[in-house]
């Protein structure tokens, strides 16, 4: 079975919070090159790693990962506030 491509916001979130790849890698317990692979969407993380990333950014998992291309976070937040 071929796995689907998982889109993510890791690069945006990491840059926004001024965290280096090495620091993020240390926090989530992977090699810093794996962070690069995740950011380029060349590697789909396991569920465990995805949860570790979401805990690290203190965001729900669906805000970071999606099976569809992700819109900018600001656009997403605007949509949420409009719904309210």
């Amino acid at each position, binding site marked *: 079975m071929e796995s689907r491509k998982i889109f993510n916001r890791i690069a945006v979130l990491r840059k926004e919070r001024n965290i280096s790849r090495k620091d993020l890698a240390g926090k989530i*317990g*992977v*090699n*810093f*090159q*794996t962070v*690069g*692979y995740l950011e380029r969407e060349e*590697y789909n*993380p*396991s569920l*465990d*790693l995805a949860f570790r990333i979401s805990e690290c950014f203190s965001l729900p998992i669906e805000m970071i990962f999606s099976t569809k291309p992700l819109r900018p976070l600001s656009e997403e937040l605007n949509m949420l506030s409009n719904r309210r």
Partner: protein
Amino acid sequence: MSRKIAVFLNYFCIVIILIIFYGVKYLGFPKMYLLAEIIPLIGLIISFKTAFGISNLWKLTHTSFSKLDEREMQLVYKATTYSYSIFTILCIAMIYIINLLGLAIIDVVAAACLLYIAHILPASIIAWNDKTSVAK
């Protein structure tokens, strides 16, 4: 030197070493040719360093799984699976050739080459397919 060229050169040097050795042993090449083994041997060392040493792929494929992250584990697992198939085919082919040519049993040079290939195969597969180097 690109990593793919280094991997190719590494295997090419092994083949040259075997050709010279068996040429002297069975085909009547002059024994002086054995001195020329030093050239592919140097090529083997240099290409090994370029393909597996600098990129740290040797270390990656020889580290215990507990020290790797999930992506690295997946990478090594896939490479090891392919290596197992390739190595099995290689050994069977070698046994058939030796039997067909009526040569003696596998000697120390062939055994050493097989042992070396068994060790570098997973790293070669990663070096050939994966773009980035591995962190120390």
